[in-house]
């Protein structure tokens, strides 16, 4: 938006340093998170082998495989080192259910989740910002009230409630959209299968982004610099665009960013409700069937994705607000 071709040198250096610091803190957070996820296994009482294998076939081979996978005969830190080394090389161990490599499961299921999250993110950003801006510009009118009412309801509607309501209306009453699975056809079929899940996943966050956009715009509308622009007879469209919406982007991003990142996690509810083969559904079924290596791997992947997404928001923020030079200060 504001490209920065002519920036003084010290500022660039300061910004580069701030970016490095933010990336450093990202690495630290990821490292601690990996440790927490790994060490959580030590919280369970009793013999970890027996615990890991509860509900599975406790054959001697399986026991040996587990002890080897987790290096259970070695000291704790060495075990962690082995595990982390594996993770960094893309080796998340094997599922207890069918001995399939977890990385393989992730690779097949991740695209569905990412597609769902991307579609939802687009829907939320475009519709949320448009409707929020509309409501702000209709401040005090009936149309704003209507938007606010929808926002209040949408904000309290979790994705699983949205999912069953959508299923009920569209599948049962109208019979328009499919309600289960991804289909087996091409992209068109797949998108049709993703339509309801995308909407279900978006409802809460759509309400949130709408609300934030509205209040950020209203906040800017009350600012002195907007009055100055009006006092100079700037065309209204330009006042809104250059001074209200542009300035509201920063606050909108800070609040919406982390929430859109949270879609990665909420996605599991929708995948479960609509039987979509994403990693969220994989996580739920793994948790349901005591398949701990899979749970561990997916939790780690999702935490990493969530943290990276939040870091990106922090790094983008200074580009929207030149008064902020350090990404850390944006929070």
């Amino acid at each position, binding site marked *: 938006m504001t490209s920065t071709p002519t920036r003084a040198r010290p500022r660039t250096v300061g910004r580069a340093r701030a970016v490095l610091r933010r990336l450093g*803190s990202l690495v630290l*957070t*990821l490292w*601690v*998170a990996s440790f*927490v*996820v790994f060490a*959580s*296994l030590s*919280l*369970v009482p009793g013999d970890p082998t027996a615990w890991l294998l509860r509900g599975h076939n406790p054959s001697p081979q399986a026991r040996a495989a587990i002890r080897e996978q987790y290096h259970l005969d070695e000291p704790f830190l060495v075990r962690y080192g082995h595990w982390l080394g594996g993770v960094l090389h893309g080796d998340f161990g094997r599922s207890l259910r069918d001995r399939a490599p977890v990385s393989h499961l992730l690779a097949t299921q991740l695209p569905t989740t990412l597609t769902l999250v991307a579609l939802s993110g687009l829907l939320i950003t475009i519709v949320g910002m448009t409707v929020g801006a509309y409501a702000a510009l209709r401040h005090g009118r009936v149309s704003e009230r209507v938007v606010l009412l929808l926002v*209040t*309801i949408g*904000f*309290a*509607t*979790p*994705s*699983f*409630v949205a999912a*069953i*309501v959508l*299923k*009920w209306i569209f*599948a*049962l009453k109208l019979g328009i959209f499919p309600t289960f699975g991804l289909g087996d056809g091409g992209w068109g079929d797949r998108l049709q299968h993703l339509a309801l899940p995308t909407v279900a996943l978006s409802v*809460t966050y759509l309400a949130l982004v709408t609300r934030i956009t509205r209040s950020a715009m209203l906040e800017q509308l009350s600012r002195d610099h907007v009055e100055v622009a009006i006092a100079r007879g700037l065309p209204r469209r330009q006042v809104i665009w250059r001074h209200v919406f542009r300035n509201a982007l920063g606050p909108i991003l800070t609040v919406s960013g982390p929430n859109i990142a*949270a879609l990665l*996690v*909420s996605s*599991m*509810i929708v995948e*479960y*409700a609509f039987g979509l083969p994403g990693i969220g559904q994989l*996580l*739920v079924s*793994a*948790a*349901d069937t*005591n398949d*701990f290596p899979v*749970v561990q791997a997916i*939790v780690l992947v*999702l*935490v990493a994705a*969530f*943290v990276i997404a*939040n870091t990106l928001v922090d790094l983008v923020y200074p580009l929207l607000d030149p008064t902020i030079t350090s990404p850390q200060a944006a929070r």
Partner: protein
Amino acid sequence: MSALAEPALKRLRQRTRGISALSIVSAAILVIFVVLALASSWIVPYDPTAGDFTAILQDPSAEHWLGTDQQGKDVLSMLIGGAWTSLLGPLGVVVVSTVLGFVVGMVAGWRGGWVDSVLSRGMDILFAFPALLLAILAVSLFGKGLTAATVAMSIAYLPYTARLVRGVVLQERARPYVLAYKGLGLSDTFIAVRRVLPNIAPLVLAQSAINFGYALLDLAAISFLGLGVQPPEPDWGAMINGGQSALLAGAPYAALAPAVAIVIVVIAFNEVGEELADRIQGIS
């Protein structure tokens, strides 16, 4: 008698002036749900855990106001019976996270320095774990049910309160009125606990009311995913999950009733929380 009652009424009217009707309705709804939850075992028309295979998938009727599910369980009874577990979990999450968050935020903001750095760093790391994810990790470690999920969520919600409290404490601490208290020779503990805390408590309370709604949604999601409250114990999230097949079979009430209950309760909490926040801004 009336002479005594009149000022009381007048006071009440003064106190409620400016409060939106929606917030009053919201507060009333919350009271009703809490009463239902507390009195559930006396007022449920049927045993919410016992099916009746002679009356499955019924539409609402005089006997079953909200119909029955695929096992013939009375939906209204399940709804009332499930109110208890559905509200108790979030209450635990909010109480624990608010109390701990208050302590952490207050200490970090008031003491500053390395104490603040360490605590803030810790909160940043907790932020990396979305509540739902931490709850699932806990459930897979300690077994399905509300307990593990509630404890995990209390931890996941902690940094939100802590960060809010730290922020306002930092702000208050630099205010001249606090500097004046210090200058008068009052002790730090007295100023922090007796003077600053009451000033920021309403703001945190408002946040807690809103957090209650979030926690309710997150815990209901865990039950919906089949990892929380296990049937036949009644719970709204579990009911929606269990009611899906009834829904597709043409009897939507088993799933829709708890869905509507969840939405209404969360709206009510959000409204009350926002009303509180508005009133606080009006005061200072």
